[in-house]
């Protein structure tokens, strides 16, 4: 069970959280102005990287807030958690990232 550092509640067990997918995929300002290709990418295209991943979590069974996190998908260690609207922190790309 992961230990996740909620920016509002501190370190809490994974059970309290709900994973909410890749972060920083902003909803287009004018969806109707988008072609099917671009809209399809927005709906379904995901980076799914092997390495540092910016992702959303919601502290569902806690304070209820959504927040972002940087986690290395090759060892599940968190490099950072940060509030919605904050910039993605600069952290070093981990060893072994993107190795197929």
């Amino acid at each position: 069970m992961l230990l996740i550092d909620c920016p509002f509640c501190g370190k809490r067990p994974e059970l309290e959280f709900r994973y909410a997918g890749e972060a920083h995929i902003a909803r287009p300002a004018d969806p109707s102005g988008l072609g099917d290709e671009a809209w399809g990418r927005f709906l379904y295209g995901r980076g799914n990287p092997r390495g540092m991943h910016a992702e959303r979590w919601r502290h569902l069974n806690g304070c209820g807030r959504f927040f972002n996190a940087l986690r290395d998908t090759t060892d599940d260690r968190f490099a950072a958690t940060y509030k919605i609207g904050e910039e993605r922190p600069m952290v070093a790309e981990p060893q072994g990232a993107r190795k197929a």
Partner: protein
Amino acid sequence: MQKFSALALLRHAFGGHEGWRPQWRSPEPKGTYDVVIVGGGGHGLATAYYLAKEFGISNVAVLEKGWIGGGNTGRNTTIIRSNYLFDESVALYDHAVKLWEALSQALNYNVMFSQRGVIMLAHNVHDQQSLKRHIHANRLNGVDNEWLTASDAKAFCPPLNIENSMRYPVIGAALQRRGGVARHDAVAWGYARAADALGVDIVENCAVTAIRRGVNGALEGIETTRGTIETRKVGVVTAGNTSTVMAMADLRMPLESYPLQALVSEPVKPIFPCVVMSNTIHAYISQSDKGELVIGAGTDAYVSYTQRGGLHVPMHTLEAICELFPIFRRLRMLRNWGGIVDVTPDRSPIIGKTPVPGLYVNCGWGTGGFKATPGSGHLFAWTLAKDEPHPINAPFRLDRFRDGYLIDEAAAAAVAH
């Protein structure tokens, strides 16, 4: 290819089994191939086999970064069934089941396909409506699937608990008698041996590091840890790592990779005659030829490539197993492991061409790829050979996520109301 048979065993016994030759060669990769398959799992090896066997294309290499069958092929719970809802899915999975039924003979390798029947449990009115919808759709598609009352289900699977004291009592079940299990490693090895005999190069410990494209964007070759390979056709079949490989061709896939755990009990004498699945309380179980209870847990909630998950996931699964089969409560977990599953938005696979000419992909099988291995390999081989999809895999194209023609088995199961 050395013929496998009881007689051969007897003959070799006298020679102390010194006479057996390697089941497949260990060649150095050549500089060029007609087709390169990236990924030496069941699907990739099957693709290579059918390319050589059915389409006469044998100048083929299968590149595996580790050891063949070491990914999800060797990590799954080996459940085989075709009782899906939509016509497209049924066609796809039943194509595979038909091939399974003759696979041991076709490969001269006993893959131990055991059609012991797959039961899917209903725990509430909504489950019942959903399973009935599957049953009727399957029947009209000529695929076997029948409704069992709770006591029918108990009769078919005696260890099953159908008491009303359960939190979510069993109110009925759907049974596909043609469903079952197979020996996962044997599938990879059997296809490898047969493909190798037809001239396919199976190259282990060879990872792709780059995909080379020409000025027109078309594929020209690949870079690997064992050198450059020129080829005009590459089929990517790297379940769990598809996004990473496709990123080498600058493609952003509609995929997320999740850890999937499974476990086995210590071996016991035969006690469990079939496969039982409950999607509502998350439990999948069968008994292997060796006597181990083979149990599937759910995926962990987050994207990860660690091939390991949290303790709470197998705990949740065993809560369900013990609730459904109280006589197993004293059995013991022997081994737990994790795989990486590529999950698409509609929980259906992608088999076909990509925007990059010469690059083909077969991925997104989620937690259910093993059952499709022969069909998937055959259809992908067709697509690679003819540069167009077979009618069965045509609907499973990549651009359905642009147009919205999803084949949404998950959504069709809908939610409780």
